[in-house]
């Protein structure tokens, strides 16, 4: 055993977001009752982020939290229109996650800011799921990628709806999807994303690489030859798996 009693770590978890569009206590209560009744197992004691799409008064907000708790839901953080509710949120032991900097600061170092203490009390720092705007759309190529050509999808996935010829090279920072035969080279996660994968309709590749790890033609030939397949990285080894 060491002398240290605890360690601070960052984590990400999926959570239910309850988006409050309009708050009328009676209506809200009956609708929430219906919702919870539809899947009681799922909702019991599930952690909840309240997203205030509309501004609420302190009393309304307290009532909202009380109603949630009544149905065994556990609100842990609030985001959205939290202006003027800071104190109420604190008093109720919740975290205000309307600022996006929140995600970064919890991961950096523990500090004494009120919000973060509140989170620490909940034991589970919550990062906001990335919003759609943060995702760069995949690069889509609908013509064959010919010998000698190179296609690079910077900061995104690459989707090719045709074949990749021998001597052609396709690269992406994300995943590569090829809805045709892959005869050339495919390099996914070129900036080191080990989660990146290569998917293709027919595997006949010269080379496949993920985050710098690569396999050559002969190894590819031994598995899923000319079959629909996916290639991914597992414990520093590239795996080729058929896709049914």
């Amino acid at each position: 055993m060491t002398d240290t009693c605890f360690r601070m770590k960052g984590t990400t978890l999926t959570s239910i977001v309850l988006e409050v569009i309009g708050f009328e206590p009676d209506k809200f209560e009956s609708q929430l009752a219906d919702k919870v009744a539809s899947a009681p197992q799922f909702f019991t004691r599930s952690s909840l982020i309240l997203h205030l799409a509309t501004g609420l008064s302190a009393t309304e907000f307290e009532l909202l939290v009380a109603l949630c708790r009544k149905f065994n839901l556990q609100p842990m953080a609030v985001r959205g229109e939290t202006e003027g509710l800071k104190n109420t949120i604190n008093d109720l032991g919740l975290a205000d996650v309307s600022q996006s900097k929140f995600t970064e600061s919890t991961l950096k170092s523990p500090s004494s800011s009120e919000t973060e203490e509140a989170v620490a009390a909940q034991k589970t720092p919550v990062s906001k799921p990335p919003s759609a705007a943060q995702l760069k759309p995949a690069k889509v190529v609908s013509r064959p990628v010919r010998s000698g050509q190179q296609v690079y999808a910077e900061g995104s996935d690459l989707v090719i709806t045709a074949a990749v010829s021998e001597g052609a090279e396709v690269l992406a920072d994300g995943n590569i999807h090829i809805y045709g035969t892959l005869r050339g080279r495919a390099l996914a996660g070129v900036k080191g994303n080990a989660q990146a994968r290569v998917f293709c309709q027919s595997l006949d590749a010269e080379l496949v690489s993920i985050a710098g790890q690569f396999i050559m033609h002969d190894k590819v030939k031994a598995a899923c030859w000319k079959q629909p397949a996916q290639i991914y990285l597992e414990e520093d080894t590239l795996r080729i798996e058929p896709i049914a």
Partner: protein
Amino acid sequence: MAKIIVVTSGKGGVGKTTSSAAISTGLALSGHKTVVIDFDVGLRNLDLIMGCERRVVYDFVNVINKEASLTQALIKDKRTKNLFILPASQTRDKDALTIDGVQAVLDELKKEFEFIICDSPAGIEQGAQMALYFADEAIVVTNPEVSSVRDSDRILGILQSKSMRAEQGKSVKEHLLLTRYNPTRVESAEMLSVADVEEILAIPLLGVIPESESVLKASNQGQPVILDEEANAGQAYADAVKRLLGETVEHRFLEAEKKGFFQRLLGGK
């Protein structure tokens, strides 16, 4: 509106010039006013195959350099009406071709001709890129063997990225012309089949020209093989020209000769 068609391949010796001669003759025979330009500056073969080598006075480079007018340089074909040849220079090299110079010549030709066939040199350098830069359509000549298919693939990539139409965001219409096809050798797996090549290149098939002695004979006689109506190769080129003009013609000569007539008729693709 004149159509500029480049006959190209990447690899040398696959039959670009033979095909350029045959196709331009075929188009002219169908009543379309056609000019065929030899872009192989420095080597000059088209005039030999067209049998007009002794009539070359001025050439393509002379016209580009304004040392001669187009009318002076164009050679009217003796056998086929509506057909003209613009020969290459043998004393210059491919750097003599400039975008502006080629464009000026093509613009002038467009006023008079329905089809402008550009016979590309081998390779992917300056000469080949000049030949394909202004093309509306491309006939990619390929032999049924891996290195030729690879080079054709490469040239298709260049067509769709470095041609003028590609730069304008448009595409060049592609045609596959498979030459020197020998069904017997395909059956014994010595050669790639039509299906193999089509699968790799994924472009529409314009025609399959069987390997034939008549091609060499025609070249040596300076007579486009399409004029040899007896030869398989001549007929296959005639079919290809019809397809180029939009007709639907069944592909012939895909099966080995030893097979029966009905089998050829029913089994052929």
